[in-house]
């Protein structure tokens, strides 16, 4: 050992080994950071939606007495769309598919639901507005999507939405589509049926289902 002179080759390798370790450490850190960035895209997307009104995010909910009143505004076409998720055995329809409304004027959109299954089901509606930026001018005072909806077997229910479109709506928007999709709230339905019947339900266990699009809001 003692008589071994420092060979430049050996020294070079030692230096390289150290540099490699350092590179390894840094790159692992970057990888972990980018893994985190993948998750950070979720809050970033939320912000994007809030700012642009994307995903119906701009819609405001206002109490009926707080609304402003406008007069003599232009008219636009409202279209109404209704979808039922495949996991929910309901019929759900818009009463009118389209309607002309005046900006700033309170109107009612009517939907109806029928539970065509043979047991009580709790459903939950999710909405969207197209074009996305129109949602920033959309004001609702009343909506069946604000709460969970219980329908007994065979029950039919009218589901109104009271809303108006702010007159600040950009001039190039001449029609707006309001769309609802009804999902089954599986945990709530289960709880309701268990309590009502006091017997084991044959509903699938929510932890065990194979399709996630039927799952309801996880409170």
């Amino acid at each position, binding site marked *: 050992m003692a008589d071994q002179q420092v060979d430049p080759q050996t020294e070079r390798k030692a230096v390289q080994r150290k540099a490699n370790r350092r590179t390894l450490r840094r790159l692992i850190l970057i990888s972990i950071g980018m893994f985190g960035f993948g998750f950070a*895209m979720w809050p970033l997307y939320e912000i994007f939606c809030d700012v642009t009104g994307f995903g119906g995010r701009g819609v405001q909910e206002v109490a009926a007495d707080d609304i402003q009143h406008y007069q003599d505004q232009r008219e636009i076409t409202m279209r109404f769309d209704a979808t039922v998720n495949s996991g929910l055995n309901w019929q759900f329809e818009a009463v009118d598919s389209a309607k002309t409304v005046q900006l700033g004027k309170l109107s009612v959109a009517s939907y109806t639901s029928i539970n065509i299954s043979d047991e009580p089901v709790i459903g939950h509606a999710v909405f969207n507005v197209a074009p996305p930026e129109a949602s920033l001018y959309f004001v609702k005072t009343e909506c069946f999507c604000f709460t969970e909806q219980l329908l007994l077997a065979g029950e039919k229910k009218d589901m109104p939405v009271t809303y108006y479109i702010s007159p600040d709506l950009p001039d190039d928007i001449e029609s707006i589509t309001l769309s609802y999709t009804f999902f089954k709230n599986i945990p709530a339905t289960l709880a309701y049926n268990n309590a009502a019947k006091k017997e084991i339900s044959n509903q699938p266990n929510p932890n065990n289902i194979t*399709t996630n699009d039927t799952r309801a809001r996880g409170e």
Partner: protein
Amino acid sequence: MTTITHEDHHDHKPQGFLNRWVFSTNHKDIGTLYLVFALLMFFIGGAMAMIIRAELFMPGMQLVQPEFFNQMTTVHALVMVFGAVMPAFVGFANWMIPLMIGAPDMALPRMNNWSFWILPFAFTMLVSTLFMDGGAPAGGWTLYPPLVLQTGDSFIFAMFAIHMLGISSIMGAINVIATILNMRAPGMTLLRMPLFVWTWLITAFLLIAVMPVLAGAVTMLITDRFFLTSFFNAAGGGDPVLFQHIFWFFGHPEVYIMILPAFGIISEIIPTFARKPLFGYTSMVYATVSIAFLSFIVWAHHMFTVGMPLGAEIYFMLATMMISIPTGVKVFNWIATMWRGSMTFETPMLFALGFVVLFTIGGFSGLMLAIVPADFQYHDTYFVVAHFHYVLVTGSVFALMAGTYYWLPKWTGHMYNERLGKWHFWLSVVFVNVLFFPQHYLGLAGMPRRIPDYSPQFADFNMLSSIGGFAFGLTQLMFVYIVWKCARGGETATAQVWEGAKGLEWTVPSPAPFHTFETPPKIDDSVVAHGNHM
């Protein structure tokens, strides 16, 4: 323990199959493992493609169930992308990067062993999903929820396989970066590195930046399915479109991960057979860097039809079109390299020329797809299928073939059979066009992708495409035969192999000894192919 000085002068290979291959830390052996594995995957994925084309041979359902058809398209893509193309390029990186920069091995040899040996396990798991209850994933390689969440029992196995592939790729990329940054021989400055090394350095950074993002998306899918989160579940306040953003933030750089090393290989081959230095070396480096940068800001061109705000559509359209500028620089440089060169047309050069022409066609169809109003028509049709097969098969795969013929004599010490090689090229280039060119027309006429049946007006072009497909598939058996024969014997290769070849890898004997550049080579302008001396 062996000392470092001892390692310097032992040049024998480890004895026994297990020691030589399973515990290997030698960059050449690991490179070989990657390449053989990729070839195997190329044929497994290819067999699935044959099933797809057989079903599409005629309208109507003849051979397979629709569910199985969709499993085939999904697993074919996953196998080809993650099992064939990416590992093949990592194999090239392992074999050639140390030889090209005068390093004795990869920087982290043990990790190198790991990153390879994860792959066979991951793919065994992925392919085994075909035999599970409910079958393999069938919602497409893009894994879009909610469809992918409806996969049967195999869901978690497929997701876990993708996690493992990601880990393997990240480890491979770390190794490439550490090797290139720390292990270059003295005098091998960054701007003297061969272009293949440059393109891999940038590819490795892309991998490190986006593979973890894919891992994040896959993790969110898993928690949505099993732990009641609602990242992508509309009923729970999530949004499936978010998945598409995350996926394509990974996915678009991913397509460049599959093409940049191909650019590198082509940039090595054309100067050799044109007997001229690469035209515009520095601009090639900058073009590669800008393509890599731009690839991060164009992802939503894959999702023009999800309903984005108009401003976003216009931005992503223009940003996407901008990529054709650096890509055009590259094509221009390749052509300028050949301009008035003394060209010869050995098999590697033929494949390289095929690459330049046919990849460019893929670039043009990409440009068409980037036009938002046009994409509303083309999206999810066979036009997209034609586009990405031109860039991936006649692009990436042709470059892999070109690179194999080019360096095979260095790897095996023998020349391959040139006559057969040329046959392989000409049959491939004819049939690949018979296979994919009609798909442009099918797409423009409105035939959707990933559907096992079609209306009768698409029958003729589909039959033509299927015939091309079978013939192209058969032709690839020639490749195996030629490589196998070359590994077993043949005319002895010289160290330089090709008359016009320049670069460090051609200074070592053929076959390249088990250990090379244990003492760093002297680098001067006479040995390097490129460099700022020009």
